[in-house]
């Protein structure tokens, strides 16, 4: 079966995120009350897998492979079957 997986990879909380700061500056300059803006990456992919549990396991493994544990954390965000 085909699953759609979303992996979020973000900087660990304590680490300086200059990009987030820059975006925050822009947003605040436009009058928005956004704070603590953090910028991360999102990966979307299709996965061929016999079961949802297996798809989740695979996605988690890939997330672990792709994120750098020194400064990043990951979440396997969503997993839904594809039509």
């Amino acid at each position: 079966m085909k699953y759609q997986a979303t992996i979020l990879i973000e900087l660990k909380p304590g680490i300086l995120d200059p990009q987030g700061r820059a975006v925050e500056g822009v947003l605040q300059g436009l009058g928005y009350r956004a704070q603590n803006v953090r910028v991360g990456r999102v990966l979307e992919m299709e996965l061929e897998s016999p079961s949802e549990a297996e798809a989740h396991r695979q996605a988690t493994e890939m997330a672990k492979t792709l994120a750098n544990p020194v400064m990043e954390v990951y979440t396997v965000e969503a997993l839904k079957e594809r039509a």
Partner: protein
Amino acid sequence: MKVAVIQFPGSNCDQDAAWALKWVGLEAELIWHTATHLEGFAAVVLPGGFSYGDYLRAGALAKFSPVMAEVRRLAERGNPVIGICNGFQVLTEAGLLPGALLANTNLHFTCKEVGLRVERNDTPFTQAYRPGELLRLPIAHGEGRYYADPEVLEGLEERRQVVFRYAALTPAASADYNPNGSLNDIAGIVNARGNVLGLMPHPERAVEAALGTTDGLGVFESLKAALEVVA
């Protein structure tokens, strides 16, 4: 005494590194990243560039290249390994050096000359320098901000693993000599054993007077001397 210069898809300082190695009289051979053995090579250089386009993160995808298992084996055996710029990023991503290299605080690629202080000259890469010597070397990177957890950083300093630090070339320029926001002004480190070096500046761009500075020559001359001792 051949030195392997690894070519990842997207490496672009591979020829320059080979040129610099040959400049000091070392033999250099370009090795495509799918190679599965590095027999006969005394040392390895991971050159600068944009391996795998630097997609995802600089150096992140290159660590999966087949040749990396061999690079790891040589590093563990104690052979000298140098990662320059993108090569440094690959070494940290692969866990051969501690820490990580994040986006420069100014958020953009920066190509210019910086000041660098040699913190120790008892490594195979720095014997040709005096300790505390100030060097002028070019940098060219967008992700060079050295980061490590506080404990890791402390350990690095305790074991004197920091080899190069950004430094002011002249007292007048003292304000913003750190070009990327690296913690502790770190520009280059070695592993605990001292045989794996990673540095963001480009010594291979600084071996000929015609190109502005020869301050990078020491890295290659040191390596040559170190390899001769072994041989």
